[in-house]
């Protein structure tokens, strides 16, 4: 008979006896959670990218200053991708003796591939939604202010270059507003077929082409991979994170949270697996000694048990992957009302990854205790007291730490941060362990002074202080993991709620002249729109950093490069917006020539404190010294700025003002009043963006809540594993005490005291470690503010005490209920 059959038989017998229940449960939970999370996150990411693609008017877009080669389009066609093209350029329109610099957009058929256009044919805001088509040939759609500025009305002719077009609609919304709010000269939209007839574009004309594609994810991925190497310096693929930072920020943060949740569940499950395997290993010392006696070699012993665990791992991981699949399908079903009708298909690779994660966790956490079996001496058959030396603590901790470090690094993508989190965790755990050990040693002095039940309870913890410390730390780590998951989730959701309250601004107004600000505010107040901030804006372009042209500094295709290829909205302020947080430096608004820079742009442009920046504003050059670098919350629906100057620096330049405010659906006619009174203003509706944003956040909230349950489930397995791991000795001693005459009440009280103390110590240590780690995670990974949580400080030790004491009480109930003789025989 082969060794494999022996291993299988041993496994089945142990399985039938319930030896492996907790271990299998922990592994299934870990794999289910890991598979569900990675499948869900992957599908949600791809679905949201599709939704977010509406703001690119496509799934994928290439921007270029020239026409792209026809064979690129043929390639896209061959992959089954739909295509559209827009061309944007500025031109001066002259009508009725009025001049206007406008932004013309020539659109092809099928535009927009994603999202919609909105137009109106009257003065009020009753819009119609138009999908996948722009103006017909010979027609033009104009923004309201073009009509106002050129004194035109619907039905009139508009001459663009050499071509006369009929104004058929008023354009109120287009999904793919480019760059920042100010790349919007007043819009004129024409049909692509009329472009040549305008004769505006000549060799050397400044025009932006946008080649848009939509289709299946596979086809898009293939085209993306194919086209990337072909792009030249003036071409790039548009990216939702860079081109829509407010959306990208929320997506990134949510994905990071989902990733952290996954790590948390894996960590908790790993602790349960380690504890269960330790008990399993110790329970097999005698059997191993017999096998050694009968001639089994050390390597064969290890193989026998590894084989069993591999079979267990494969079966549990397969089951966990299946459950994970169903779990994410269930979640998508629950969220069906919130999601688009077409959700991205599940990826088989995510299932495989979940399966492999299970094997990885099992080997990582189960191997050290199993290695101990290899060292069991055959002499144990004669001397029961002979136990193999524990596997080197360094090996045990190194393996587990390596696994966790790898996972954390994968999600933070920051080696320094991973090291900080792991380092902080290790140091705080070690300190806590040492303090607890010292406390336990000293607690022995209390024994003569306490009652019998307290003495028995305390002795349960004191007889082997090292084991008590290990058990306490294992449970503490579990609590820490669960706290991390819960606290981060809660604060993440609260943060989003705070950023997007019910009445978050849904309209932006630009191009308010300085003299109009006060009356504009007054008009708003009359309509009960109060406390609105106006921000001055000057358009300028960053040209030099420390007298070096920026093109020589920036990396190709970076955020910094894009920021230097266009005018930025420069503003000034005495007080920075309250949600702009200082990263470094000191904001000195009273000093002339100071500028505060957004930190991601600063990093991309390699800008540091003290650097001298040179801007071109109109025909003038303006210098400023970087005195302050700050973080900006892009997802707040308020005006945000890369560059904020000290007031005196830009005050002399011609400027306009920008603001944002909330208008309820039923009050939208206020906008008519504003536009009539201030015809130069541009009103941008961000309702669609906001609604979309809120929908995405709601989806994420549901997912995050759902995922927390996995962490809780895993936590419970650890609780039972922790209690079970030292159950045998407790049960034996209890049976002996009952044999000697101890009554049930005494035993129950002693057990309650022992487990309560265990729970209390675990809770206190968990509070210490979790506060340290939360601080690190909030500040460096999630970029949120963290404050000490009083509820956690008091609540966690109490909850921990209750849970552990109840679990322990339940686990040892046989000791007080069964006949001591039966228990002695079963042992």
């Amino acid at each position, binding site marked *: *008979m082969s060794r494999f059959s022996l291993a299988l038989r041993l496994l089945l017998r142990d399985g039938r006896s319930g030896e492996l229940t907790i271990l299998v449960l922990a592994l299934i939970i870990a794999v289910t959670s890991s598979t569900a999370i990675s499948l869900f996150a992957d599908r949600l990411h791809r679905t949201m990218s599709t939704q977010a693609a509406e703001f690119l008017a496509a799934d994928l877009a290439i921007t270029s200053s020239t026409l792209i080669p026809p064979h690129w389009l043929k390639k896209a066609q061959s992959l089954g991708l739909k295509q559209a093209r827009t061309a944007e350029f500025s031109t001066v329109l002259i009508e009725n003796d009025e001049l206007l610099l406008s932004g013309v957009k020539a659109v092809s058929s099928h535009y927009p591939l994603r999202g919609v256009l909105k137009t109106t044919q009257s003065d009020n805001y009753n819009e119609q939604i138009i999908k996948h088509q722009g103006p017909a040939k010979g027609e033009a759609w104009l923004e309201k202010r073009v009509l106002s500025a050129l004194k035109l009305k619907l039905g009139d002719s508009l001459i663009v270059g050499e071509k006369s077009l009929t104004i058929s609609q008023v354009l109120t919304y287009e999904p793919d507003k480019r760059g920042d709010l100010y790349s919007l000269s007043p819009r004129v939209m024409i049909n692509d077929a009329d472009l040549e007839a305008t004769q505006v574009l000549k060799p050397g004309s400044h025009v932006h082409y946008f080649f848009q594609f939509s289709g299946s994810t596979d086809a898009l991925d293939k085209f993306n991979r194919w086209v990337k190497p072909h792009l030249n310096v003036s071409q790039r693929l548009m990216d939702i994170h860079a081109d829509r930072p407010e959306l990208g920020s929320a997506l990134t943060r949510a994905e990071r949270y989902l990733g952290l949740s996954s790590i948390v569940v894996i960590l908790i499950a790993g602790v349960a697996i380690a504890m269960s395997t330790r008990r399993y290993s110790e329970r097999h010392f005698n059997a191993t000694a017999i096998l050694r006696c*009968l*001639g089994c070699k050390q390597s064969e012993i290890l193989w026998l048990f590894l084989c069993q665990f591999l079979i267990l791992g494969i079966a549990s991981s397969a089951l966990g992957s299946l459950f994970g699949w169903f779990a994410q399908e269930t979640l998508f079903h629950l969220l069906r009302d919130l999601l688009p009708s077409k959700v991205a298909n599940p990826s088989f690779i995510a299932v495989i990854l979940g399966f492999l994660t299970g094997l990885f966790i099992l080997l990582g956490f189960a191997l050290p205790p199993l290695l101990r079996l290899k060292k069991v001496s055959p002499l144990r058959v004669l001397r029961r007291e002979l136990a193999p030396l524990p596997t080197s603590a360094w090996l045990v901790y190194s393996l587990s730490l390596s696994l966790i470090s790898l996972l954390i690094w994968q999600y933070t993508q920051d080696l320094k941060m991973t090291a900080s989190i792991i380092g902080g965790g290790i140091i705080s755990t070690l300190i806590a362990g040492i303090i607890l050990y010292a406390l336990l040693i000293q607690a022995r002095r209390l024994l003569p002074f306490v009652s019998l039940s307290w003495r028995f309870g305390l002795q349960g913890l004191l007889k082997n202080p090292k084991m008590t410390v290990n058990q306490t730390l294992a449970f503490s780590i579990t609590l820490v993991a669960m706290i991390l998951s819960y606290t981060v989730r809660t604060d993440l959701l609260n943060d989003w709620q705070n950023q997007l309250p019910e009445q978050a601004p849904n309209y932006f107004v630009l191009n308010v002249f300085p003299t109009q600000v006060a009356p504009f505010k007054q008009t708003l107040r009359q309509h009960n729109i109060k406390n609105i901030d106006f921000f001055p804006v000057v358009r300028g372009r960053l040209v030099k950093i420390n007298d070096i042209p920026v093109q020589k500094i920036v990396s190709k295709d970076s955020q910094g490069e894009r920021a230097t290829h266009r005018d930025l909205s420069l503003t000034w302020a005495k007080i920075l917006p309250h949600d702009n947080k200082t990263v470094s430096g000191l904001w000195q608004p009273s000093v002339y020539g100071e500028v505060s820079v957004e930190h991601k742009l600063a990093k991309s442009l390699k800008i540091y404190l003290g650097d001298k920046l040179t801007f071109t504003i109109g025909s003038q050059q303006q210098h400023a010294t970087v005195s302050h670098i700050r973080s900006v919350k892009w997802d707040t629906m308020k005006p945000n700025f890369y560059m904020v100057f000290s007031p005196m620096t830009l005050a002399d330049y011609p400027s306009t003002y920008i603001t944002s405010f909330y208008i309820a659906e039923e009050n939208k006619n206020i906008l008519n009043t504003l536009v009539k009174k201030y015809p130069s203003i541009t009103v941008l509706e961000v309702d669609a963006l906001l609604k979309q944003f809120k929908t995405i956040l709601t989806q994420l909230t549901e997912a995050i809540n759902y995922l927390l349950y996995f962490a809780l489930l895993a936590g419970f397995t650890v609780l039972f594993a922790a209690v079970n791991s030292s159950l045998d000795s407790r049960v034996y001693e209890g049976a002996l005490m009952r044999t000697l005459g101890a009554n049930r009440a005494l035993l129950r009280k002693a057990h309650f005291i022992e487990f309560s103390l265990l729970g209390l110590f675990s809770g206190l240590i968990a509070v210490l470690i979790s506060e340290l780690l939360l601080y690190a995670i909030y500040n460096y990974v999630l970029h949120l503010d963290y404050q000490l949580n009083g509820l956690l400080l008091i609540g966690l030790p109490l909850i921990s005490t209750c849970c552990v004491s109840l679990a322990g009480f339940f686990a040892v109930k046989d000791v007080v209920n069964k006949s001591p003789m039966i228990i002695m025989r079963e042992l």
Partner: protein
Amino acid sequence: MTKSQLNIIETENLGKTVPTSDGPLCILSSVTLTIKSAESIAIVGASGSGKSTLLSLLAGLDTPTEGLTKIKGKNITTMSEDGRAELRNQLVGFVFQSFQLLPSFTALENVMLPLELRGDKNAKASATKLLDRVGLSHRLTHTPMKLSGGEQQRVALARAFVTEPAILFADEPTGNLDSKTGEHIIDLLFELNQEKQTTLVLVTHDNALAARCQRTIKLEAGKML
């Protein structure tokens, strides 16, 4: 048929000292003996005299701190742990005071185990035959928990003899049994021993049992008398 009366076990100045918190403790010292093939030897002595230690050194379960042990001319003291394991599988059988059966295996599976570890394809047939020999053919599928002490020891005897070992080590085989059951077990032990012509090394504090062996080695305070 009688096996050749060669020396199957030899020791030279065998000794075992262990470190303790009070300094080194000498459990066994200067034991030099020879055991011939098919001989039956009783190792007797009071509790703590070093009997079990001597047995463990003779069987290769432990390594001495002084001296050496040879089994069939091979110095097992210098062998690796795996080398000794292989030797045990090939040459040695054991019977223990506390039976030492695998609790999750049936009687049949316990007896099959040493043959399975050798890769013997006829393990089941051999084990069934031997369990029948010890009178347990009706208990093949029962686990140790369902067997009495005597029955468990009979299973242990069957396991010890199923490989037809050259040497059988028995450590207080009746220590956990009542006297009547113990007598039956001993009778069975010696019957099987005679049938298989196995060298028997028996540790006991029972002088009556020791008298049934061909030779007695007495230990006192770790020394051979």
